[in-house]
């Protein structure tokens, strides 16, 4: 019954024999026959029926039909031709139907065996309803309503189609066409159709369905158009075939998609694993190569050579290391992403090969950084040392230069015999000069000692050119010794010369003291002697002879005096000769002793003393000492430990940023995979943050515990509760880091929702493609999957060896579990 709008009512029970419209009966006969044959033909064309009220009468084909559509086996039919055999067979069929939960009211095997059309049709309808329509589920509706909803959903885009029921809505054929076009648009040109041509529309739809969808014709277009209201059951039977064809295809598509997705995930995971292994190998290899270089502590002991090594190190830090740091971050992120993906698809965690574990990489990297730091420290201290050495060597050379300049010509000066040819006052001046020199020398002692000390230090610090240094130092020291000796010698010489000259001076003075009066006497005597005396008397002669005798008496004395004076001169000469000194002239007198002939009785030498004014001069030495205050404080231009801290800090920041981004990506991945909404995610984050008091993005165990309790977990305050909590901690913190990250927290909170058994899902998908069989063929795989995935499966699937195997059967079950590295034992 329906109202004037043709809206749906509740399912009609089949036993409306009284109300069955003859026209409907006609339609139903045609339709149900076709429907039954669409199943029976699968067992062979000979099993099809022609006459629905006749061909089911012995129950055999009825049982066969039920076997085909259910996929199950019925009890063996009785092969006899007697009526009771037939009734028994029909009963077997009816029992089977009843066993499927259908209440068969007033249907009897006898009526069927007798060929009661209405009963037969009713029974067939029951079968159709139960096996083709009952199990349809679309959104929340089932069976007839579900089927109707399916039609409405699928034809919704077609404005000239309005499916409200299973009779009038289908009369103009557009609904059938729309269903076809919706799923297989290439099969007809929908928009050329019009409701003015119902016959054409219906024929088009039925033809296409038969040819391309393997749905035999079940409805008669003439009947559809001519009847005021087509038979609802017939339409439903036929439409249900469309449903199974298309949704079956849909299911297959979904199954194929799932398989592809899983394969893709697998292949992507394999790729990530390979990439991880490769990156790990490369990085470890690079570290292996680089460490010895950083541990090499040899230099050529020169400043430029060592500075070159510093430049090399700088280059390493600036150009070689950053890409490797990136690689390391990439490696970490790759590992985390991989583990997240595995965890989300319920696969076991990834275990890298030996030597490439995360800990191995971390240790190797740490070793590298330690070597790096050690190298830099060593290099800088080497540079310090070498700079200091260089500096010292400079200082050494400078001091040597100054000293050598000062010492130039001193040897010659000291060895000069000038003091042997000078006057006494000159000598005294020289002596004073020498004294001054001696002080100067003493002062320079210090300098020489410093030079020697520096040379010593250069030796002990292993300066590269100690040979030159030592040679120069030796030369200076040797010269110093010589200067010392020469100085002493000169002093001695000067002192001796002084003594002699003083003695000579004394002698000169004596001479002068004596020579003058003597000379006077002599002059007088000479005068007297040279005088012309006129003598008149003997007394005068006697007087003269007496005077002369007197004079002669004094001669002895004068002779003595003369000898003494001459002796003085001789002594001076002798002294000069003895000591190699050129005696100066007598400054006290111009007289000089000279030999006169005795005839005059006296021959007194005249000593002429020339007094040469000695102009002496002291060379004016101004020695300007360049005093170089050299700072002993070595400025450590190269040890920029603050730079070091910055650089390390920068590297850590870059790594942390990359890691952060990776964390966020993985969180999104996690959220999507677990089907957590953004709102829920926010709630989880808020809970976590509330207990993360010090904002470290980690929860300490007691914070985590408080969090769980606040979310309703019953963790008791006793040993049992503690044991429970420790179990939880071993799951959320398996590596015993001592803290719980947000990821681990989220994972734990949502673990129930993702407890899926994905190998089974894949198996299910294959089963759908295989048409519910326990094996699949290469043909189906190539039909349903993209070519490369199909070949992937075909290559890897083992042959199926069950009892019901056909040639070329492939075992998708073991393949599914093997995809996940799983097998059933």
């Amino acid at each position, binding site marked *: 019954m329906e109202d004037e709008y043709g809206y749906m009512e509740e399912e009609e029970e089949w036993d409306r024999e009284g109300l069955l419209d003859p026209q409907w009966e006609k339609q139903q006969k045609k339709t149900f026959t076709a429907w039954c044959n669409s199943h029976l033909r699968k067992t062979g064309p000979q099993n099809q029926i022609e006459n629905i009220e006749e061909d089911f009468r012995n129950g055999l084909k009825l049982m066969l039909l039920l076997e085909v559509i259910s996929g199950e086996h019925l009890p063996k039919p009785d092969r006899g031709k007697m009526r009771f055999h037939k009734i028994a067979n029909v009963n077997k069929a009816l029992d089977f139907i009843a066993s499927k939960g259908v209440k068969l009211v007033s249907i009897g095997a006898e009526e069927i065996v007798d060929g009661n059309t209405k009963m037969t049709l009713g029974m067939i309808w029951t079968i159709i309803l139960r096996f083709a329509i009952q199990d349809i589920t679309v959104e929340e509706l089932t069976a007839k309503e579900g089927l109707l909803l399916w039609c409405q959903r699928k034809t919704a885009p077609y404005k000239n189609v309005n499916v409200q029921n299973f009779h009038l809505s289908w009369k103009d054929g557009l609904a059938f066409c729309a269903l076809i076009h919706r799923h297989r648009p290439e099969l007809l040109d929908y928009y050329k159709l019009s409701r003015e041509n119902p016959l054409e529309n219906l024929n088009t739809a039925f033809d296409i369905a038969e040819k391309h969808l393997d749905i035999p014709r079940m409805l008669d277009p003439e009947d559809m158009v001519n009847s005021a209201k087509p038979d609802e059951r017939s339409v439903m039977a036929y439409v249900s075939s469309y449903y199974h064809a298309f949704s079956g295809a849909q299911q297959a598509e979904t199954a194929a998609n799932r398989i592809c997705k899983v394969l893709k995930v697998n292949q992507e995971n394999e790729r990530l694993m390979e990439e991880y292994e490769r990156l790990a190998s490369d990085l470890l290899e690079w570290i292996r190569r680089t460490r010895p270089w950083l541990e090499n502590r040899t230099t050529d002991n020169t400043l430029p050579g060592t500075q070159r090594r510093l430049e090399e190190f700088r280059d390493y830090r600036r150009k070689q290391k950053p890409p490797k740091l990136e690689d390391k971050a990439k490696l970490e992120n790759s590992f985390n992403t991989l583990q997240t993906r595995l965890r989300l698809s319920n696969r076991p965690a990834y275990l890298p*090969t030996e030597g490439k574990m995360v800990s191995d990489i971390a240790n190797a990297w740490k070793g590298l950084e330690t070597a790096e730091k050690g190298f830099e420290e060593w290099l800088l201290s080497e540079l310090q040392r070498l700079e200091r050495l260089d500096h010292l060597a400079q200082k050494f050379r400078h001091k040597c230069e100054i000293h050598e300049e000062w010492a130039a010509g001193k040897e010659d000066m000291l060895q000069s015999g000038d003091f042997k040819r000078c006057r006494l006052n000159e000598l005294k001046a020289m002596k004073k000069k020498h004294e001054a020199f001696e002080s100067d020398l003493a002062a320079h002692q210090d300098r020489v000692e410093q030079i020697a000390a520096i040379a010593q230090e250069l030796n002990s610090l292993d300066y590269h050119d100690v040979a030159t240094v030592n040679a120069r130092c030796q030369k200076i020291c040797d010269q110093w010794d010589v200067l010392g000796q020469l100085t002493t010698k000169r002093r001695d010489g000067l002192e001796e010369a002084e003594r002699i000259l003083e003695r000579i001076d004394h002698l000169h003075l004596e001479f002068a003291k004596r020579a003058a009066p003597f000379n006077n006497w002599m002059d007088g005597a000479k005068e007297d002697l040279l005088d012309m005396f006129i003598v008149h008397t003997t007394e005068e002669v006697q007087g003269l002879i007496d005077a002369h005798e007197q004079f002669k008496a004094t001669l002895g004395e004068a002779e003595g005096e003369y000898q003494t004076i001459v002796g003085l001169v001789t002594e001076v000469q002798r002294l000069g000769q003895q000591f190699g000194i050129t005696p100066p002239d007598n400054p006290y007198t111009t007289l000089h002793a000279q030999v006169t002939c005795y005839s005059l009785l006296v021959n007194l030498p005249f000593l002429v003393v020339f007094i040469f004014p000695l102009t002496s001069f002291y060379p004016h030495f101004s020695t300007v000492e360049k005093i170089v205050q050299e700072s002993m404080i070595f400025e450590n231009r190269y040890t920029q430990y603050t730079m070091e801290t910055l650089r390390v800090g920068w590297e850590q920041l870059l790594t942390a940023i990359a890691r952060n981004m990776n964390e966020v990506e993985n969180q999104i991945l996690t959220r999507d995979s677990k089907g957590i909404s953004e709102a829920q995610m926010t*709630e989880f*984050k808020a809970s976590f*943050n509330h207990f993360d008091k010090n*904002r470290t993005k980690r929860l300490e165990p007691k914070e985590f515990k408080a969090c769980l309790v606040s979310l*309703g977990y019953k963790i008791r305050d006793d040993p049992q509760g503690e044991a*429970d909590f420790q179990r939880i901690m071993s799951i959320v913190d398996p590596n015993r880091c001592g803290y719980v990250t*947000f990821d681990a927290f989220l994972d734990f909170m949502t673990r129930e929702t993702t407890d899926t058994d994905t190998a089974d899902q894949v198996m299910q998908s294959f089963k759908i493609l295989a048409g519910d069989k326990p094996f699949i063929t290469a043909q189906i795989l190539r039909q349903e999957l993209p070519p490369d995935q199909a070949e992937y499966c075909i290559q890897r699937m083992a042959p199926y060896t069950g009892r019901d195997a056909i040639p070329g059967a492939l075992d998708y079950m073991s393949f599914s579990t*093997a995809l996940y590295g799983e097998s059933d034992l």
Partner: protein
Amino acid sequence: MAQFSVQLHRPPGTLWGFRLQGGRDFSSQLSVKKIENGSPAQGQLLPGDEIIGIGHTSTNGLTHMEANSLIKAAGNVLHLTIVRGPSQDFSHIKPTGPIKFSPWKYNQQQQNHY
């Protein structure tokens, strides 16, 4: 983590009833994925158990199929050395129903630094 041996017995012609997963070729530890109810493995093995030895052979470095073959070759008496972590069953302390987030979270919106 506790390590111990188990010995499984089965009637001839039956399966052990557990699913093996992992192996060197899958870059993961060999372990038990799930147990069929009523199988010989039930009660002896638990999901998550890591298999480190089959008979006298260590599983270190074995591929999945190698381990599989070893188990099959053991016949009807199977010795396994397993490592088992603590139980992951928290049904007695988990809250029932959907998670109730606490009301203080509304104050956290300003301080949400995550």
